[in-house]
């Protein structure tokens, strides 16, 4: 355990609006490296990030950055870079003037050089003189990232940073974030897409309904998620006979038949998908439709909560 205070500490942080609880009793610490904040929409990710940035007051508990509460010490922002959610850009500014504004407001010694370096890091140099209002969403996101890293912060907070980026841009962005994390910067990235976080971060925090559902190594949590039974819906011309065959499979948890459709709960979608065509052929049934019905991240997250 390091003697240095954690870069970010949340101690029993809660935030509510009237009767609506956005985040409840959340505690965690962040140290250098990349951490993913994962959760479905409405889980409280943005609320948590805003509290860490000092944009929201905790209703209860405390949020400390480098051991201090940021709301009482604005000079801490020298060490913090933030990519907030939403657009939040000045449409009339060019990419260069926007990034330079951030450099000057941060008090960077050589704002011109820092601006060019940050723009190059996010691959926006060819578009540096374009106005922000004419850029694609992915280009605007990269511009926001340039503004957040222009002063080389020790803590980088990114709220859904890859929204609107194309696959190539995502790959380069992920590489950039990994490099920043490997250089000793504490990075917290939120996302509701499991695959994104998997490529970005080895440590993750999973938020569901404002509570911490899981935290720690990504792969361990992924294994937990893999245990969850999935539902597969099948439409066939003899669903009842097909159901009898499916229930005999070792991975099948339950099967319900409703007319020409059946819903099977299985612990292994892969083995189910392999066995189903064979069963259908053996029983002379014609398959008309096969689809999984609860692949959404939210279902997986709720499963995690249920395990606690």
């Amino acid at each position, binding site marked *: 355990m390091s003697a240095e205070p954690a870069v970010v500490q949340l101690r029993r942080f809660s935030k509510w609006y009237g009767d609506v609880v956005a985040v409840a009793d959340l505690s965690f610490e962040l140290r250098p490296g990349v951490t993913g904040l994962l959760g479905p929409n409405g889980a409280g990710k943005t609320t948590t990030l805003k509290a860490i940035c000092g944009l929201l007051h905790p209703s209860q508990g405390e949020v400390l950055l480098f051991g201090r509460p940021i709301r009482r010490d604005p000079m801490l922002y020298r060490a913090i870079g933030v990519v907030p959610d939403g657009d*939040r850009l000045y449409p009339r500014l060019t990419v260069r003037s926007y990034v330079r504004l951030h450099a000057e407001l941060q008090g960077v010694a050589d704002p011109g050089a820092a601006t060019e370096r940050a723009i190059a890091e996010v691959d926006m140099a060819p578009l540096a003189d374009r106005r922000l209002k004419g850029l694609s969403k992915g280009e605007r996101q990269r511009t926001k990232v340039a503004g957040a890293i222009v002063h080389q912060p020790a803590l980088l907070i990114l709220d859904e940073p890859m929204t609107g980026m194309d696959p190539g841009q995502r790959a380069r962005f992920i590489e950039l974030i990994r490099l920043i994390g490997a250089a000793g910067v504490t990075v917290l990235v939120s996302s509701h897409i499991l695959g994104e976080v998997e490529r970005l971060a080895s440590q993750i925090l999973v938020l569901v309904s404002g509570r911490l559902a899981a935290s720690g190594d990504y792969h361990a949590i992924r294994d937990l998620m893999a245990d969850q039974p999935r539902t597969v819906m099948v439409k066939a011309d003899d669903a009842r006979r097909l159901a009898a065959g499916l229930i005999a499979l070792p991975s099948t948890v339950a099967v319900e038949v409703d007319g020409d459709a059946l819903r099977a709960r299985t612990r292994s979608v892969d083995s189910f998908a392999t066995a189903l065509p064979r069963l259908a052929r053996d029983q002379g049934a014609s398959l008309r439709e096969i689809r999984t019905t609860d692949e959404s991240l939210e279902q997986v997250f709720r499963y995690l909560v249920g395990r606690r």
Partner: protein
Amino acid sequence: MSRSLTLLRFSLGQLLAGRRLVIVALLVALPLVLPAVFAAGADVDPATFTLDLFRQLVLPVLLPVVALTFSTSSLGSELRDGTITNLLLKPIPRPAVLGGKYLAAVVSSLLVLLPAETAGHVVAAGGLGSTQLLSGMLLATVVGTLAYCALGVLLSLLMARALLVGLAYALLWEGAVVSVAPSAASLSIRGYTEGVLAAVLRGGGLDLTTRLGPVSATVLAAVVTLAALVLAVRRLERMDIP
């Protein structure tokens, strides 16, 4: 210090971007200069004409409209579209952010109002005319701008329809209520500016009868301006940013 200057420069650029300054300046100057052109060719006393125009058009309408428009959009528009996070997530204390936004609104308003008033005065007088009148009008405009901008910034932190509420105060309260209930002038920025104007004009042949004396007007203007700014700072420091 340089961060605060960057903030002020940027905020001014936001308020006066593109051709906005020219358009607003023309819209304000036209109703002051055009009547002055006609008055210059007619048999009217230019000082009396300019003073009447100032009291009938600038103080009740142009000054509050311009100052409230700039001040409610200076911080309020950035709060509404979320761009304020670009400024708040920086090593700048929130009172300094508010101060920069307030000063930007004041400077923008004065850049529009002072040249227009000066132009109207010069055209009506056919020259420099009464410097006492001109300095009285400009000083009253500065005092009014400081107060209306402080009010506008505060309102923009408290509600979404800050401009509407600010204009309702200027046009209904100061225009209608104060005229039927003179004691209400103690809560009227327009009343303070008239008091300051009267103080400068005193003894110059253009004496004004105002509801507030010069000392009361000046003190009240300062108190209202400072109180609005203090409340605005407290609000910005305590509010959650959406």
